[in-house]
């Protein structure tokens, strides 16, 4: 099958960096990476012309509710780089902690990623290092610093997250 063949190629390309592969669906392949390897992996895909960057999704993974016994866990953010090639969707997934929320910019390899990176910055508060245009994209110019609407802690301007800033 065409899709299977494409995934075999992708798996081979990403082998040096992949920490884990998952097949959540017949049309999908998820590859777990660490942040430091992202650029090399994206460059490899781009060079091999494996599909195109269709979107970058950010997800706020809040820590599980504290039951008093467990460690005080820090929340994490997940960034997914979705590449589409015909029916196949490959997602490169990296997880980063709140306290160290930065990812490298992929714009040097894929210039069209700029809009998705700007979204990540203003909506999730993820610093995208070396992104060409760090300005606001969709939020107003007078939007307060340090308020990131797509974080789960943001529930309006009376939320603790907004009060703090």
């Amino acid at each position, binding site marked *: 099958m065409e899709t299977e063949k494409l995934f075999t190629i992708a798996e081979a390309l990403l082998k040096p960096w992949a920490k884990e592969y998952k097949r959540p669906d017949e049309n999908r392949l998820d590859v777990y990476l660490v942040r430091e390897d992202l650029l090399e992996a994206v460059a490899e895909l781009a060079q091999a012309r494996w599909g195109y*960057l*269709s979107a970058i*999704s950010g997800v706020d993974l809040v820590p599980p509710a504290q039951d008093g016994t467990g460690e005080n866990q820090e929340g994490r953010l997940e960034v997914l780089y979705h590449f*589409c090639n015909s029916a196949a969707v490959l997602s490169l997934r990296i997880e980063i902690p709140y306290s160290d929320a930065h990812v490298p910019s992929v714009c040097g390899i894929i210039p*069209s990623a700029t*809009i998705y990176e700007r979204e990540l910055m203003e909506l999730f508060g993820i610093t995208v290092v070396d992104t060409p245009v760090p300005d606001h994209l*969709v939020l*107003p110019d007078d939007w307060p610093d340090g308020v990131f609407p797509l974080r789960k802690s943001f529930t309006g301007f009376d939320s603790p997250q907004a009060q703090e800033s």
Partner: protein
Amino acid sequence: MQEKVEKFIVPIGPQHPALKEPGHFEFSVDGEEVTGATIRLGFVHRGIEKMTESRTWIQNLYMLERVCGICSHVHGIAYTLGVEKLAGVTVPPRAQAIRTIVLELERIQSHMLWLGVAAHEGGFDTLFMYSWRDRETVMDLFELISGNRVQHSVNLVGGVKYDITPEQKQKVLDGLNYLEGRIQYYEKIITTDDTFLGRTRNVGKMTKEEATLLGAVGPTARASGVERDVRVESPYASYPGHPVNIVLDEGGDLTSRFIVRIREMFESIRVIREILTNLPESELTVRVPRRIPAGEVISRVEAPRGELFYYIKSAGGENPYRIKIRTPSLCNWGTISSVAVGHKLADMPMLLVGIDPCFSCNDRLVTVRKETSSQTMYWEDLRKYGVEYYQ
């Protein structure tokens, strides 16, 4: 000695730059020639992705259909297909067929609307009025099927609300016959009218490589010969049984973008006729649980403007955990800033409409500016404001 050249910047927008929607552009110019372009969006950003997290799976369908007024159905489709997959249900074939018919009608409607706007920007108001008059045919068909012209709201999570009766079927076919004749006439005009060709030929040329690199999607990409069409690559709804032929053009200029959209309408008409004559008999809905099992799904569909991408994550509750919407216009904006360079300022409106930009596509909080201060309003406040205002 080299003279220091200062950049002269022409700001366009945010009030209605070529379109009746807000976007702000800054074109740096050297005389009449554009040397650079930057884009600022977000003037109608509504925070829909955030809103989805506090609404139930059912409520979200109605909100997501309102991401865009021109392609409301396709947003509903992307969402319902994703949720149905998470829930593990299969929609009955007749419902799939009706969804696909409305999808293609919507494509015709959207392309006709675009043709009118594009003609208007080109100073060809007769064509604008003709195409919008003829577009009414499709709008009437929507009303016939669903009772609504714009927000057809045909979808349910797990099926469709409306059936197509034999009488309605005949009316749809009659409407399509009329439209086919009209679209043939439009095709003739856009390929032969000298004045129009003067505004479109070799304007905004984008090679296949550029289009691929800039991440163009939909008709904008296909007009540069890039074979990207989700209906063909990863068929959904009734497309597996009624395949669509991809419409390509190698020209890469504005003329090609006109040609591709016009020919896509013929293809849509063909597909609708095919499905209507082979309309399967079945139920219209299937039961979907109120809580959607935990998991995540990626749902891709071909909206009139190109690939629409939904990433849906469920934590097993009554509300989604996260919904990411990547609309086609967002991809195509990137092409503008690079294609604009080297063109005359006067070509900019045509170039902008060339990608058929949809602002509600991109901007999904509202800041109300009063004379002295600006106030940020949220959904509840806006609702209250609206209710009080109209009392």
